[in-house]
């Protein structure tokens, strides 16, 4: 019993410490890259501009983000009691923003000026600790030089 309790507490502490540190680091990176890539618009609209001819490419940004033991434990308690799973909100937020950044990076490599019809897909992968995959995909518009 004591061993169980101690191992449980240690896993929670490791999850909390490393999880929080990793999340802060990831957010710092996300904010920095969002500013760098702010010039490239990624739009949900299905109606691209018609001012000129564009080449169109499918671009994707994909990321897999794992929760930590602490966050997963909090979420499991919410499963019992009900309410908002606050501990997973930042996980999904990071996943969506990172996936969009990767999509934009891919679009920029193709000299795109905008990405239209951007959509997200989210799935849960992995086993014990919640891990999500977020896929952002859209149509990159590359102006034709003609």
């Amino acid at each position, binding site marked *: *019993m*004591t061993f*169980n*309790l101690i191992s*449980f507490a240690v896993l929670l502490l490791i999850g*909390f410490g490393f999880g*929080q540190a990793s999340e802060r680091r990831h957010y710092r990176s996300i*904010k920095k890259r*969002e*500013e760098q890539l*702010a*010039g*490239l*618009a*990624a*739009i949900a609209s299905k109606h691209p*501009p018609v*001012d000129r001819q564009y080449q169109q490419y499918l671009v994707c940004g994909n990321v897999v983000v794992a929760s930590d033991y*602490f*966050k*997963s*434990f*909090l979420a*499991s*308690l*919410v*499963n*019992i*009691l009900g309410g*908002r799973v*606050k*501990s997973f*909100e*930042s996980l*999904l*937020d990071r996943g*969506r*923003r990172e996936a969009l950044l990767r999509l934009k990076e891919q679009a920029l490599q193709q000299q795109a000026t*905008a990405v239209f019809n951007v959509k997200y897909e989210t799935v849960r992968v992995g086993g*014990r600790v919640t891990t999500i995959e977020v896929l952002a995909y859209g149509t990159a518009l590359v102006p034709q030089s003609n």
Partner: protein
Amino acid sequence: MHYENRNPPEGINTSDHSPVREFLRLSLSALVVLIAVGIFLNFSGSLLGGLLPFKAELWITERVDRIMQQAEQESPFADPVGQGSDSASVDPLEQYLQSMTDKVVAALELPEPIVITLHYRDDDVFNAYATLGGHVYLFKGLLKHLPNENALAMLMAHEYSHVGQRHPASSIGGGITMAAGSSLLLGAAAFENRFFSIASALASTRFSRSMETDADEAALAAVNSIYGHVNGADDLFELFTGIRDDNQLDFLDSFFSTHPLDDNRIQRIEEQAAANGWLATGAITPLPAQFLQWLN
């Protein structure tokens, strides 16, 4: 047309909350809920288990025994003391244990359908326990430490009282409802089950401890009835204390232990003896001289 992505303001898609405060709030709430559910499930399961007729317990153990034998597996209910050999070659240890059982059963005045089937296990395990169908197990590892016959009588009377008071059926009934309830409530998720096991240990300890106390009380009355005094009965718990000290059982294990603390049990024995006017002094009956040789 001009398109742009503005950097999203922070804190809209995520909640600004203190994870530690959230953890404390959720843990305490869930612990309270789970303990309440655990107590309810354990109580109702124990109640239902205790209503099971003793004949049903016998039917279950006989059926398990038959299935195990058909599968050529070693049945836990096989090889009871005093059976399976012809009377001329019966082991002296088994003869002695059976004669003690007869004395203790008579003193306990167990109700009619209840029968005790004693099993001696030649394992160096410091344990004795009672289970369904009146099957009681005594291990060499415990018997070899017993200081006298009075302590042996107390040990046997304690285990047989569990059977007489239908504790194994109640306990298993409680365990089954707890397991079924936790599966229904929480599914097979690892996190909740670990948490639930802690909560359910807290919820069930009380019932088990009350069973142990009841068994102690009945056992002490039986010892008094056999020897005319209760001297030597507390030697059993002093033996437990000694072994526990040697093994350095820690605070948490003591807290979660289903047995009351040994000091409390000794004190309760003394109080019960005083309240009933039973003699606390009297001649201690030694174990047979060859007892240790029989064990070895």
